[in-house]
């Protein structure tokens, strides 16, 4: 009875020995120069692989930081104290990153803007915009099928009466929605900005008038009323320079189309 146990133990022990040695040898032979710092940085990064830093996931970004000394403030959702630790590891001083938030510059969408044709295809903005640049007469407007909403890892975007709206509190400004939106109607604005323009129509005023009931006509009233020169009408649509804007709200009252909004 004892011999059987000894044989069994011996057999498996020998197998364990050989396999352990093989693994040890393999880990030596296939040794990849793994930078110790990379593992530490991955530990500090949030690990959500959201792609906000423009890399495919945290390990790639850590790779970039260690190997080609990528600036470390790219990660929008990284906690400040982690950022300090990373900067110690890499020895680069990190200036605090300004929290950016996504914002959809359109207040019309398929409930307000007039339509070119009735669209019954796939409920996906990319598919809809392939057909004569979308079914809206205004070719800059949001189609409201929520491709950005489904792509957003924090699901901060929801579709309300035909247009996409960003919930500022849960958005981490990773920017995935920007490259997903076929109409390029989303951009990043500073999180604490109070005022923003809800339209991105670059057609002439006369054309926009019958395209959509809440389109910017480029009438420049807002530009005139703003005492701080923060509002400029560029290429027929008003745009706000957030560094100058003090959110006094005058342009918001004066705007005939009511498309300058205050949160």
């Amino acid at each position, binding site marked *: 009875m004892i011999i059987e*146990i000894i044989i*069994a133990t*011996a057999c498996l*022990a020998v197998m364990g020995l050989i396999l*352990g040695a093989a693994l*040890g*040898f393999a880990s030596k032979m296939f040794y990849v120069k793994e930078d110790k710092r990379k593992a530490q940085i991955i530990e500090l990064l949030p690990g959500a692989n959201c792609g906000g830093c423009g890399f495919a996931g945290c390990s790639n970004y850590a790779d970039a930081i260690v190997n080609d000394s990528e600036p470390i403030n790219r990660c929008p959702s990284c906690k400040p104290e982690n950022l300090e630790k990373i900067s110690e590891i890499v020895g680069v001083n990190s200036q605090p990153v300004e929290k950016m938030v996504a914002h959809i510059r359109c207040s019309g969408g398929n409930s307000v803007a007039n339509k070119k044709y009735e669209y019954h295809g796939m409920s996906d903005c990319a598919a809809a915009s392939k057909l004569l640049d979308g079914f809206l007469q205004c070719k800059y407007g949001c189609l409201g099928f929520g491709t950005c909403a489904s792509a957003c890892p924090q699901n901060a975007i929801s579709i309300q009466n035909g247009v996409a709206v960003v919930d500022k509190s849960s958005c981490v400004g990773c920017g995935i929605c920007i490259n997903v939106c076929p109409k390029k109607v989303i951009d990043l604005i500073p999180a604490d900005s109070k005022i923003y323009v809800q339209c991105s129509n670059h057609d002439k005023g006369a054309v926009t008038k019958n395209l959509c009931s809440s389109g910017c006509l480029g009438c420049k009233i807002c530009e005139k009323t703003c005492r701080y020169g923060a509002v400029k009408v560029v290429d027929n649509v008003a745009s706000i320079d957030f560094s100058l804007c003090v959110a006094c709200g005058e342009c918001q009252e004066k705007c005939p189309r009511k498309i300058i909004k205050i949160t």
Partner: protein
Amino acid sequence: MQNSSKKPKSDILRLAVTLCLIAGITAALVSLVNAITEPEITRRNNEKTVQSLKAVMPLADEFEQYEYTDGSVISDDGKEVTIDGVWRAKNKDGYVGFCIKVSPKGYGGAIETIIGINSDLEVTDAQIISMSETSGIGTKIQDDGFLSQFVGKSGKITGVASLPEKDEIQTISGATKSSKAFLRGINAALTVAAQISGGEN
């Protein structure tokens, strides 16, 4: 691992020794448990086989293991049926017949069956030990309706879909593969019994 300073040789050694220790200790524990449970399991298994043999051959009270050499029989339709064991059934006044354990391959896997055959090569009874047919369909082969058809049959039995005559049985509709496999098992047992008794007298 904190000791990258050491020579790499001892690194490999450390890995090998740890894995060897873990594997060795586990093996020791398992073989210890096996040593304790081994006799118990074999006793229980023998008891179970004797029980199932008796269920199939009630009039015999003692079974002799018979060394059947070539382990499997090829049935007429070219399928292989493994023969797990052959026993000669005996009681006080000599040999009474055979018990043969076969496992033909059914729909879900092997159908382990024990078949009792009396000395004039007729099927006395059949019992299924284990099978993995689809529950509700294939498992219908263990119903008495299907099994009782085989009792008293001998020679070569064929399966028909309906109105079976003398040497035929009715297969279960919807479970043809399972019933055909079971039938192959019975035929294989009959051929083995014929071979042994043929060789005898």
